[in-house]
């Protein structure tokens, strides 16, 4: 595992996490969280945990983003913080 790839993906992950909790639109939060999960999946694939990466790609980046979007669709989209 090359430390350059590791460091770049980790930086992206932290950036996505900070963006997901600071942005004021909940739909953007859901999409940024999907991006965060996908970056996490890449990191695990690089780390050699292929089964965990596969699970995260289908569960974290796929289904849980859909759940968030569905819940935001049924509630409100705007938030104060």
């Amino acid at each position, binding site marked *: 595992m090359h430390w350059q790839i590791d460091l770049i993906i980790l930086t992206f992950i932290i950036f996505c996490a900070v963006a997901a909790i600071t942005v004021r639109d909940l739909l953007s939060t859901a999409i940024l969280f999907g991006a965060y999960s996908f970056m996490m999946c890449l990191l695990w694939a690089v780390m050699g945990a*292929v089964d965990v990466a*596969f699970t995260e790609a289908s*569960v974290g980046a796929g*289904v849980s983003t*859909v759940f968030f979007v569905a819940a935001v669709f*049924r509630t409100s989209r705007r938030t104060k913080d």
Partner: protein
Amino acid sequence: MKFAAFLIVSLCGGLLLYATADLPAWGDPNSPAGTHLSPHYIEKALEETDVPNLVTAVLADYRGYDTMFETAVVFCAGLACLLLLRDYTRKKGSFYRHIPTGVVIHFKENRKNPPKSREFEHMDKEWVPYDLIMKTVCRILIPFIQLYALYVVAHGDFSPGGGFQGGVIFGSSLILLAISYNLRTVMDRIKERVLGFLCVLGVLVYTGIGVLCMIPGGNFLDYSKLAVFLPVDPGHVRALGMLGVEIGVGIAVMAVMVVIYVNIASEGRHDEGL
């Protein structure tokens, strides 16, 4: 509040950062996690279970109890979602569209039966016109996604994958159908009763295989005892037991994902979705 949160977080983070000094160096092969139990799994799993994918071997065989109760937790989550949100009161009024002319009829009361014919279509109040490209692409894509999901479940012994991943992919293909068409299309094809039945069936398949192992006198989930029922090479029987368990996990996870999505997207009324 924000200041207090920042204080707690920095205190907690500082303590954890201090504790990293005692952790083994990153990627150290002789770390405590890699020296006690896992060498046995790595060196003996292929010999004992005939499954090359070590993760599947540990998941479904050595730690079978763990996975069984995880499946039960997933089932309970689906049940909780259903009980929290399911709403059986019918909404007043329904909209029908006469397809040849495009005229929309609004029934204010639900007493009389809505007309059932090919010319009338039940539609939602907040109606969005169908997107032809989206519908066609998804219609072509969905069978392939489902086939891939079955491959992931069946080939989980040899490559990354298994019951959890395959079940989630199969469930997301049905969710894709619900997003690209509408929720009613999915609920007409798979009735709610069938979905509930599948949730239970998945857990039952898992525990059923466990009980089946007890009949010839083995322990619960001791797949090697299944050789009595299966006319195959005794060295391969544990791999087949794992496959059966993975199928059970896949069914349960698939049904639970669809149940959760349907209940959240329609607030439990099962009529209008995303």
